[in-house]
């Protein structure tokens, strides 16, 4: 059975989620906190009724609980009812006694780690998630022999229908080690930072699914507190002619928005944050008036996608809409047209709007009423699907 990770695009890339009996590595550069990504998956599995066994050799249990709390997740209740159990291999390493339900008295001993994992799996219901945080620290403490145990861990999760999720920070190990990791795990999720133009962002990607090496897209994400992992789109441009409804669209979509308005028209920028079904985006709404075009040209840069808003009752403004796309250098980006003001009696239908704009079938057009919010979320969903889907 495949189980959702709680992270939308990732689930699709993993062909539905993590399967019981499967092994997955969360491979990350040391500059990203990979464990926080794992917490999101843990919390999602706990919420869906599964058990989670969490092995830690990198931090104390209360630190994990506190970090989770900052994401807005109270894990105490799950711990009390026995669905969340910790295997403490951290405090024993510091020479103290273990704090979790289970402890590894000698964290440098791979044999002992394996037997404690077996006992924990035996004492939890099947279908649970076993997290190792982290395999790289185990490697540092035990030496490469711990990698010889991976086969055993894989057999254990097969036996108990659990899924294994190992966090692995690449501190610059020899290539043989990376190769062994890549070889062993059936699924490989990689977290890295990339620089796109001048913007530095974190991305996740999937390198392997069900034992098959795959090429998949790189999905930008952010860790939100509260919220957890959110797929992050730093700039969606909302543009279109004067009075089309851009400001209304930004406000209808945003959880928080600010506008620079004078005499009820935008003179500089509408800016809003949108949280939507696991996605997080920043909206940049431009002004429509020609005299502000230099600002439009400046703000168009680095947009990931565009929402073009037009007043469906004013086809005479459509050439201006096209000109704005061009000026914002937004031509060719994933785009959706909001055929706005559908509530007005003389509004053209979305199909008529498409024809009059001269767009082909590849550009989706949705009918919207920005003042009531009708159609705008549906439109955003279609746009996100164009960016990340398929």
């Amino acid at each position, binding site marked *: 059975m495949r189980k959702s990770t709680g992270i939308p695009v990732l689930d699709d890339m993993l062909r539905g989620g993590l399967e019981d009996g499967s092994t997955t590595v969360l491979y990350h550069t040391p500059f990203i906190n990979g464990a926080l990504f794992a917490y999101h998956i843990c919390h999602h599995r706990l919420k869906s009724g599964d058990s989670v066994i969490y092995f830690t050799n990198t931090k104390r249990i209360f630190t994990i609980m506190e970090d989770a709390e900052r994401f807005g997740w109270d894990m105490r209740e799950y711990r009390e009812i026995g669905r969340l159990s910790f295997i403490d291999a951290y405090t024993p390493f510091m020479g103290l006694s273990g704090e979790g339900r289970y402890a590894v008295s000698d964290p440098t001993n791979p044999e002992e780690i394996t037997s404690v994992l077996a006992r924990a799996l035996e004492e939890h219901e099947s279908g649970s998630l076993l997290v190792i945080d982290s395999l790289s620290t185990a490697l540092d403490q035990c030496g490469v022999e711990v990698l010889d145990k991976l086969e055993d861990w894989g057999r254990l999760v097969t036996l108990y229908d659990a899924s294994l999720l190992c966090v692995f920070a690449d501190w610059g190990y020899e290539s043989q080690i990376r190769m062994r990791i890549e070889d062993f795990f059936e699924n490989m999720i990689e977290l890295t930072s990339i620089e796109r133009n001048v913007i530095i962002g974190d991305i996740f990607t999937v390198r392997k699914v069900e034992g098959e090496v795959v090429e998949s897209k790189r999905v930008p994400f952010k860790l939100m507190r509260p919220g957890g992992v959110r797929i992050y789109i730093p700039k969606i441009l909302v543009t279109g002619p004067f009075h089309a409804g851009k400001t209304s669209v930004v406000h209808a979509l945003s959880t928080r928005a600010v506008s620079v308005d004078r005499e009820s028209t935008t003179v500089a920028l509408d800016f809003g944050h949108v949280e939507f079904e696991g996605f997080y985006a920043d909206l940049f709404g431009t002004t429509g008036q020609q005299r502000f075009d230099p*600002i439009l040209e400046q703000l168009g840069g*680095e947009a990931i996608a565009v929402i073009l808003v037009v007043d469906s009752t004013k086809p005479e403004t459509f050439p201006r809409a096209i000109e704005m796309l061009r000026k914002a250098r937004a031509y060719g980006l994933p785009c959706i047209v909001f055929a706005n003001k559908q509530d007005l009696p003389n509004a053209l239908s979305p199909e008529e709007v498409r024809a009059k704009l001269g767009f082909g079938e590849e550009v989706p057009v949705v009918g919207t009423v920005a003042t009531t919010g009708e159609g705008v979320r549906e439109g955003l969903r279609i746009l996100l699907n164009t960016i990340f889907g398929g």
Partner: protein
Amino acid sequence: MMEGKLTLRDMLKKVLMDLNATGEVYASAIVSRNGLLMACEMPSDIDSRTFAAMTATMVGAAETAFSELKKGVAERVIVEGREAKIIAMGAGKKALLVTMSDPRANLGLILLEMEKASEKIRKLLGR
């Protein structure tokens, strides 16, 4: 196996931390001219990404207005409020450096420190 490797992001953050540590400013950010946040060292109650978008817009508008006068280019934008002072200046072709400081802070000193920081940022960004 911890290595002393710093990412570009860490380096930009360090420049800002050093700038804040001079004591002249209490918050600073590096913003792309297109309004995206690149790095910031700010109190958590400030919505840094909104701040980034708005300052870039402000600088863009000021530069456009200035260029209409045909008196050269705008070097910096200073906004003085009763409770804070915001200063923005270019840091290479693609980025802006923005700081917030006490309204009574010494402008000359702030500008001096900002010039140094912006030169570092320009070099770090390689443009």
